[in-house]
């Protein structure tokens, strides 16, 4: 650093006081809170980004399908992406259902007892729906069951717009084939996805 630059940087530092430092903390905290950069949360991988889907595959090594975001309708976003060795979960938030996100969870098994079959969403996938209530809230769980795992979607909507909201979250979440992911990882990274 040249002396002139050194002096300038020191001048800048000299002007910073405890206020400056506290202000920086506050701005960082507020900024982080606003942009949802909390340490534990994150965005859910899209179906067109298979390298990021690998972590979901690792969370349930037996699952033949993996949930991913195929496209979000306007007013929807994702949060709380949390892959662990016991499964993966995330939230789908709609501005038409504030405070009541759809909870999506990939697990090795699901308890779909009492659920009614629905049209299948992918080859080899059995889809079920269980409604817990229709009024005053339209609440229940949708299941995509496939070999080695299942994806559950817990929803709780206000009556009126529930049909559109259910259609939108079903369209938002796609199912990615584990077999296809294995091939891509082999091709792009040269690694095997176990098992």
């Amino acid at each position, binding site marked *: *650093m*040249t*002396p002139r630059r*050194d*002096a300038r940087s*020191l*001048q800048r*530092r*000299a*002007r910073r*006081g*405890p*206020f400056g*430092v*506290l202000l*920086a*903390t*506050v701005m*960082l*905290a*507020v900024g*982080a*809170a606003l942009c949802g*950069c*909390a*340490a*534990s949360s*994150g*965005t859910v*991988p899209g179906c067109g*980004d298979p*390298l*990021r889907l*690998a*972590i979901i*595959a*690792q969370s349930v090594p037996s699952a033949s399908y993996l949930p991913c975001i195929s496209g979000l309708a306007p007013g929807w976003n994702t949060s709380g992406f*949390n*892959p*662990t*060795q016991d499964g993966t979960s995330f939230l789908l938030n709609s501005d038409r259902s504030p405070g009541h996100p759809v909870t999506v969870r990939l697990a090795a098994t699901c308890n779909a007892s009492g659920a009614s079959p629905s049209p299948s969403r992918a080859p080899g996938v059995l889809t079920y729906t269980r409604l817990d209530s229709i009024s005053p809230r339209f609440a229940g769980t949708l299941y995509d069951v496939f070999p080695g795992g299942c994806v559950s979607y817990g929803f709780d909507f206000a009556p009126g717009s529930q049909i559109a909201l259910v259609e939108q979250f079903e369209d938002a979440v796609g199912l990615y084939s584990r077999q296809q992911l294995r091939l891509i*990882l082999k091709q*792009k*990274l*040269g*690694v*095997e*996805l*176990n098992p």
Partner: protein
Amino acid sequence: MKGPEVPPLITASPGGRRRRPAGEPPPLPRHIDHSIRWYLALTGIAGALWAAMSVPPVLGLITRADLAVLHAVAAVRTAWLTRLMLDVNPLASPWTVRLLAFGTIAVLVAYRRFQHLAAYLVIFLAAVLLLSAMTREIGRMRPTGIEVLGPWQGYAQPSQPVATLTLALVGVLYTLMPAGRWRNRGKQAAGIILAAVCAARLYLAVDHPTDQLTALIIGWPLAVVAFWLAVPNDVFPVSYRGGRKAHLDIGGRRGAAIVTALDHQLGLTVIGVEPFGLEASAGSTPLRIRVPGPGGGETTLFGKLYALNHLRSDRWYKLARTVIYGRLEDEKPFSTVRRLVEYEDHMLRLMRDAGLPTPRPYGFAEITPEREYLIVMEFFEGSQEICNALVDDRVIDDALRVVRRMWDAGIAHRDIKPSNILVRDGHVLLIDVAFAAVRPTPWRQAVDLANMMLTLALSSTPEHVYERALGVFAADDVAEAFAACRSITVPNQSRSLIGTDGRDLIGCFRQLAPPRCPISIQLWNIKRVAVTAGLLAALAAAVALFDAYLSVAGLL
């Protein structure tokens, strides 16, 4: 009354004093340790790794190299070793990090190290945000093709548990541990803990080696560089030895820089420099400087070393005074250390020109540009603090005339107390003019008189001091002085001595002087209301934001 003047060697050479040429470093240039350079280089490596990982073929190459290391480690897996590693792994759990982080914050608050606390909070939050952003951006899977034995959460790169544990440990080291032996021991202990955790997580195949490498770089080198920038140890040393935190160490490089600066800039050949009267000074580091005297002997000068931490203390002090006293203490904080020292030098010269018995100024020297300055003035050799001196009529009259002269010159000292009033050969000398003001409020001038009379009364009687004061001031002046006098307008030292003395000196003076209604000093104006409301709002916001902070920083 005047002491011997030290002849600065300004004209030692026909060409005048040596001028520091452009480009030459100042006496004490900002020092960058070799370790800091290495840390910056390591940070570059982390950046390069992240950039490389955004290219799939390179990511594949790095992943295959990582897996080769993990397979080699997995070759030594045994049942007992697996149990041991599973026991070591929780060292990096969020609870360990929370314990360390909250412990650090608690100690920093307890010891009122708010500068370190602010730096810690900013650095911790910024690092966690960086980690979070990079984790999402890279989106790396956990090790594959090998059995993962331990628990995991989220993407692998960089390893969040390793990074946050490292950050928490570095926070302890650089905000709580004194530099030197204790910090070095702490580094060794932290190194052992991190080595154990990293080894366990590699053994369990939870992280790739490069996940840990980048995590360690963010948590250690990057954080250390940030602490070095925010709270450099030479300005904000961590110490538990008590005493004022404002004082700087004048040994080593700084000591040599002081000698060089005084020689080059003020033409003073320094024989010795030593701290002096540290207990009485909070706003600077006072020094006694020995230089060759006029007759070939040795004489002493007084120096005050000002640095950034003094400037910041001054800002807080003035903010507090604005809230407590309001409009009458309407003070603007200094924007830089240079301005602070320039002001004191100016006041020394102004008061000297006004015929006040203040120290002769010798100018100031730049130690580090905009960061550290040393102001040099006459040292009142052979003088005594007024409390320890014989206070006879001559001293009382002289002290009162000093106040009269300040009034006439339109100056207020604003810190009249026993430790700032010296007596030599029956004459009063006034020191520490840093708080002095030109064209002060009339209230402030009246308070100067009250504080001088209280100081004199401590070594005499209020009746006698009042009687002598009437020879210099009108009775109404004295009445005004004590109408403006309150507990908060009396300096701490005087207040303490009055308490020990036991006499109601203020009450006595009020009885002696003509009756006068108390002058309200708790004046409220828009600025004071705004500053007070702003501080209260900031406090409330800080409490609310601290909760948000803990959540964002992953400490909840």
